[in-house]
């Protein structure tokens, strides 16, 4: 397949691209050539410049220098939106969903119809488009009512359906769970077979081996290498990304001493019920890391959000160190020492206009000085240590988080959750969009706080995230269905998640 495409024309080419944001050089004289019909992976650490290249390849931004071409022809003028749209379709890393518009219209934005729009027809077609992705929603509902995952799938369905011959996917899988990713790949393969060209960005490297033929690595705004995927082992790939030899080692629960039954209980859930879950009881001991797994509809997110007070339970009790936490109150949850990485960084995680320091310190503003005083020095030090401890690529603690790359934004959310030295840490998809190396260090942080005696709840479907867990609790249809110790196997876990265990 790779050989077949070798002599073919280039679907897209970018040459000598440089792009600066103020003093930050996001792309430094880079190039990429994507052959017609191939699926080309672009990888690199957070802040390497991948998404910046995407915005240039889709005509949202002009490079400071360099040129872009499609199928041998120079790219259209920036204002010729229609021209760009004919050449390339894209799932951007940042959401392009319009919350007030219906799901159907989001799918058909700017192509609702050549003349008079037929809403009934559009509704029918929308349902058909979403079918293969397993998104089962009323397409007339406003998109604001969708979950993060459903929104992501709507964006994917839209990009794949516009009929472009070249499609870019910037971290399409970061917010998806296993089955959704699988369905996406089925669609991708079908489109690959019809000759569609893809550029695919992901921090899940195994996905690259699964769907791509060629891979390009960027590091620190520079092009490092381009090679056929089957000639590049994983270790080499990671080395190219990080610029240093030596593999990765995701911390494992097994390396931590066993917590044991004698450790005091930090968090207790007793018969907790709420939106999408019922009768959940759970005890997390000090120093214990508990994984919470389950399908998108299992209620795992809702349980986690309820613990942190983002949702109000209908019944049941949450206790920290034996003291009851006021239901539905984030303020009280924080007071009891609960910290949280919420599910969607753009919704509840970050104030984009504020600086890294300020976002990182948002939950501890009251503790930095007397009477609510926030001494600039203290604030800067919270920001500085966040940047250092979580591998954040930024020009400084004063930089607004809106300027950060996606993965680096996620790290700021992590910093915020940990700023108050929580006794109980609730992490929802904590490593979404985080590069492999940074993921290692983030999970290292989880490991470290557990060792210092915090109880951690990790809501995730990523195997790496679950490896740090002492126990994995699987939910199914809103109830606790299964519990595994450190010795869980992938197949057993998957079976439990699907509700077909035993």
């Amino acid at each position, binding site marked *: 397949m790779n050989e077949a495409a070798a002599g073919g024309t280039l679907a897209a080419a970018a040459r000598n691209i440089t792009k600066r944001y103020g003093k930050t050089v996001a792309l430094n004289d880079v190039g990429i050539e994507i052959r017609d019909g191939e699926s080309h992976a672009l990888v690199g650490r957070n802040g390497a410049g991948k998404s910046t290249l995407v915005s240039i390849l889709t005509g949202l931004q002009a490079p400071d220098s360099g040129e872009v071409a499609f199928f041998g022809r120079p790219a259209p003028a920036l*204002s010729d939106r229609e021209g760009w749209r004919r050449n390339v379709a894209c799932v951007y890393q940042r959401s392009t969903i319009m919350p007030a518009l219906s799901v159907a219209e989001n799918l058909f934005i700017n192509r*609702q*119809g*050549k003349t008079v729009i037929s809403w009934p027809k559009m509704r029918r077609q929308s349902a058909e488009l979403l079918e293969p992705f397993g998104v089962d929603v009323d397409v007339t509902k406003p998109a604001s009512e969708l979950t993060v995952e459903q929104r992501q799938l709507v964006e994917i369905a839209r990009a794949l359906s516009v009929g472009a011959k070249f499609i870019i996917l910037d971290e399409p899988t970061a917010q998806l769970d296993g089955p959704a990713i699988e369905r996406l790949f089925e669609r991708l393969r079908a489109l690959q077979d019809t000759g569609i060209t893809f550029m695919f960005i992901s921090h899940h490297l195994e996905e690259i081996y699964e769907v791509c033929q060629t891979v390009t690595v960027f590091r620190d705004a520079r092009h490092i290498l381009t090679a056929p995927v089957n000639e590049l082992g994983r270790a080499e790939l990671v080395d190219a990304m990080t610029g240093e030899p030596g593999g990765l080692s995701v911390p494992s629960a097994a390396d931590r001493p066993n917590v044991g039954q004698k450790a005091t209980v930090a968090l207790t859930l007793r018969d907790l019920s709420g939106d999408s879950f019922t009768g959940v009881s759970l005890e997390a001991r000090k120093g214990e890391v508990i994984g919470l797994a389950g399908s998108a509809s299992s209620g795992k997110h809702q349980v986690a959000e309820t613990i942190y007070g983002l949702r109000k339970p209908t019944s049941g009790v949450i206790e920290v160190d034996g003291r009851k936490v006021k239901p539905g109150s984030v303020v009280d949850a924080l007071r009891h020492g609960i910290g949280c990485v919420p599910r969607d960084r753009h919704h509840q995680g970050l104030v984009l206009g504020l600086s890294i320091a300020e976002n990182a310190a948002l939950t501890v503003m009251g503790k930095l000085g007397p009477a609510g005083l926030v001494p600039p020095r203290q604030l800067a030090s919270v920001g500085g240590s966040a940047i250092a401890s979580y591998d954040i690529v930024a020009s400084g603690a004063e930089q607004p988080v809106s300027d950060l790359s996606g993965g680096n934004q996620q790290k700021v959310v992590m910093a915020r959750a940990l700023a108050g030295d929580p006794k109980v840490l609730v992490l929802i998809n904590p490593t979404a969009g985080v590069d492999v190396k940074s993921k290692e260090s983030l999970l290292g942080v989880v490991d470290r706080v557990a060792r210092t005696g915090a109880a951690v709840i990790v809501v995730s479907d990523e195997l790496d995230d679950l490896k740090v867990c002492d126990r994995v609790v699987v939910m199914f249809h809103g109830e606790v269905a299964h519990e595994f110790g450190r010795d869980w196997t992938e197949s057993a876990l998957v079976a439990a998640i699907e509700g077909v265990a035993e």
Partner: protein
Amino acid sequence: MTKTLSPDAATATAPASGRRTPIRLARFRDLALVPAIIVLMVIGALISPTFLTVGNLTDVLQQQSALALLVLAEAMILITGKFDLSLESTIGFAPVLAIALVVPATDQAHGLGTEWPQWMAIPLCLAIGAAIGALNGLLILKFQLSAFIVTLGMLITVRGLHVGVSGGSSLFQLPQSFMYLGFEKWFGLAASVWIALIAFVIGIVVLSYFRQGRSLYAIGGNVDAARAAGIRTNAVVWTVLILGGVLAALAGILETGRLGAIGANMGEGMIFTVFAAAVIGGISLNGGKGTLFGALCGVLMLGLIQNLLTLMSVDGHWFGAINGVIILIALVLSRLTTGKAQE
């Protein structure tokens, strides 16, 4: 390396929530004011026998027709996520300048000496409205200035030009053709009502059933995403601003015909009412939300409240307070009956 749980049994996911009868939320938001309007109608009927007469209601429509055009313009501009405060001075200045260009330069007529043919007054007036909208667009889009402050500056400037050109006097000597639309009746209903109605119908149809119209919502909802979807956002916003100016100029023509002269402060303070009608009618100041039908309901509601207060002969000293309280009550009422939070 990283791995995500991918079950082999992908098919196992059964459709959990069935696709039910489509509930049209958009429709509901449209109708938010209908209960409040009905309550007003009932109260009105009880208070004054005149209220529900055809004569009175068509008069209310006529009185609101110029306002309705401004609200139509503002609603479209707000939906695209912009602002235009200057509409309130365009409504007066566009007619004044157009007329000054066609009438003689006597002390009474306040012409500029050009004395162009009289039939040109209406096209000129619309062109002046378009020019003001275009200038707003230039400053907002090319210079990337805040729409609020640009159009506030424009409001002051254009009002100032109005006073300057007219010398601060009311213009009484107007070409008959210029008065026609605001004064005449067609099929028993004021021409201005027909015009406003037709403008709204066109607006509603375009914003509901045409890609061009839907793009206003996309731009107001998320301008980057709209650009990414291939919408020429600047061109669309500019068009809408120009159209807004034209509609304001048209409103000026209707108002001139209705009032028989152009005072030096025609339109003054009107922009508040325009925003009130649009926002009460469900248009969001943040862009991307609301329907023209809702905005029209807002216009009607405010018109009915005014009419009712007049019929009740409310004491002038308490007129304002009662007016304000009724507006607040209507807001709460429409909030409670639809259960939708406003923005």
